[in-house]
C-alpha cells in the first residue's frame, strides 16, 4: 500500500532552480532601466507612467529581489474600494508599488507606477461633485435648525 510518504516529493526553496542556473538578473535590469526612463519623463514632461508586473516573465526570486531593490519609502496608502488597494512609495521618490485586491482579497493587478501621486488616490471630479451635493444635503437641515441661511453671515 502506498502512503503519502511513498510518493517522492522534492521540496525546492523558491527560485533555487533558477538561481542555480545563474539566470537571475536580466529581467530586473530591464525593469529598472524602464523605471529610470519613466522617471525622467515624469520630471521633464510631467507624464506619469506605469509597468504592469504581470506582463513580465519574472521568476519568484527575481520578483523578491526587485521588491528588495526598490525598498520602502515614506508613504504607505491603503484604500478600501471594493477590496483593498495597497500603494507604497518605494525608496525612489515617485516610484510606487501598488497592489489591488478584490473584495475577497484576491490580487487583481500589481503595478509599478511612476507618478507624483498615483491616479487612484486622488478623488475623481464626478465624485467631488457628488460629495459636495451630499455635504449640502447634510448641511441644509442643520442650518435650518439654527434659523440661519446656508451661507455664512459673520
Amino acid at each position: 500500500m502506498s502512503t503519502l510518504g511513498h510518493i517522492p516529493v522534492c521540496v525546492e526553496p523558491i527560485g533555487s532552480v533558477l538561481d542555480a542556473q545563474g539566470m537571475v538578473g536580466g529581467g530586473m535590469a530591464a525593469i529598472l532601466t524602464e523605471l529610470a526612463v519613466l522617471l525622467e519623463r515624469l520630471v521633464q514632461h510631467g507624464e506619469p507612467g506605469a509597468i504592469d508586473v504581470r506582463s513580465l516573465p519574472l521568476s519568484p526570486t527575481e520578483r523578491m529581489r526587485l521588491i528588495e531593490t526598490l525598498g520602502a519609502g515614506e508613504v504607505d496608502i491603503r484604500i478600501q474600494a471594493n477590496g483593498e488597494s495597497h500603494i507604497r512609495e518605494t525608496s525612489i521618490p515617485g516610484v510606487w508599488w501598488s497592489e489591488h485586491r478584490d473584495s475577497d482579497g484576491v490580487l487583481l493587478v500589481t503595478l509599478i507606477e511612476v507618478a507624483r501621486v498615483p491616479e487612484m488616490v486622488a478623488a475623481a471630479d464626478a465624485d467631488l461633485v457628488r460629495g459636495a451635493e451630499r455635504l449640502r444635503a447634510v448641511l441644509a437641515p442643520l442650518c435650518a435648525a439654527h434659523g440661519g441661511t446656508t451661507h455664512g453671515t459673520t
Partner: protein
Amino acid sequence: MGRPDLEPTIGELLDRHGVSRRSFFKYCTAMASLLALPPLAARALASQLRSAQRPSVIYLSFQECTGCLESFTRSFAPTIENLIFNVISLDYDDTLMAAAGAQAEQAREQAMRSHYGKYLLVVDGAVPTGDGGVYHCAAGRTGLDILTECAKGAAAVVCVGTCASFGGLPFADPNPTGARAISTLVPDKPVVNVSGCPPIPEVIAGTLLQYVSSGRVPDLDAHLRPTVFYGNSIHDRCYRRPFYDQGKFAKTFDDEGARSGWCLYELGCKGPTTYNACATLKWNNAVSFPIQSGHPCLGCAEPDFWDRGSFYSPIPSPRWGKAGEVSPAQAGDIAAGAAVAGAAIGLGSVMLARQRIKRYQRQPPQQSEPRNEE
C-alpha cells in the same frame, strides 16, 4: 423595433448601485492589465465602459462538457457576478438561469425580439450536423436549428472553447455525429473564437469586456482568436524557455531534469505551436499553468489537437498514418521494403541496359559511328 435607447449606460447603473469611481477605476486597471493594454489605458477604458450600454447576451450550449462554463464561472477578474450584473445582461443560459422549460425559451425569444441585431450570441460546444442533426436536441429542436435561429439576429458570435471554435472532441476522428465548428455554420456574422479546453476564464471574460467597451469585434488572428490573448505562443512566454535555448531537457517525468524544472519539449510539450495566454495570465488567479506544474502543454487551443498523435510525442516526431509516432521497427520495415523495390528496379534497368548493349553490338545502327564499348 424603433425603440429608443431607454436602457441606462453602465456608468448610470454603477452610480445607481453606489459604486465609487475609485472602485471602478481599480476594476478597469485590472481589466487593462488583463487585456495587456498599457497600464495607463485604464482611464480610457473606464470612460468607454461607463458610456457603453450593457449588451444582451444569449448563451447556447451544444456538444460540450460544460467545462467551459465551469471555467468561465471561475473568472477572478472580472468576476462572473460583476460581469453578469454590471457589464452584460445575460438573458439566456440554460445552465445558469433559474427559469426552465417553456419559461426559459420565452426569455430567449423575448431577448432576441427586443435586441434584434444587437445581442451577443455566446456558444459553447460543436454542433452535430450528421443524420439531420439528431445528436443534439433541446426543447424538441435540433442544435443546428436553434443556432441558425439565434445567429440570425446576433451582432456577433463568440465561440467559447475549442469545440465551438474548431470542433474539438466531438469533431475528432472519426467524428460520428458530423460535428462542426460554429464558424463554418454561421458564415454571415462576425465570429470570435475563444479556444482552449477549457479557455482561461479571464480570457472569456476579457473578450466579452473588450467587445462591450469598444463596441466592436477585437483584432483576430487567422483562427479568428483575439490577438490580445492569442498573439503569443506558450513557448515564447514560457518561463522555462531559457532551458530550451540552453538545450536542457527533461527526458522523463521523474529524472533530474524534470525535478530541476527543465524544458518539457522532449516530453511532448506543444508550447511552440500553441497560441494562448496560459504562460502569462496563468490559471486559478495566476497560481500556475500546466508547464509550471511539470506537465507539457497539450496544445488544447489549436485546431485538431485531439488528432495530432500522442500528447507525449515531441513536435518534431515523424507521424506516419493514424498509429502515431513512427517506431524504429516500422521505419526499418518500410526502409527494407523500399530497398527491395529499389534493388528490383535497379536490377531490371541493368538488365535492360545490357540487352540494349548486346543488341547494339550485334547490329550497330547504320547512321551513327560505332562507339568503342568495352
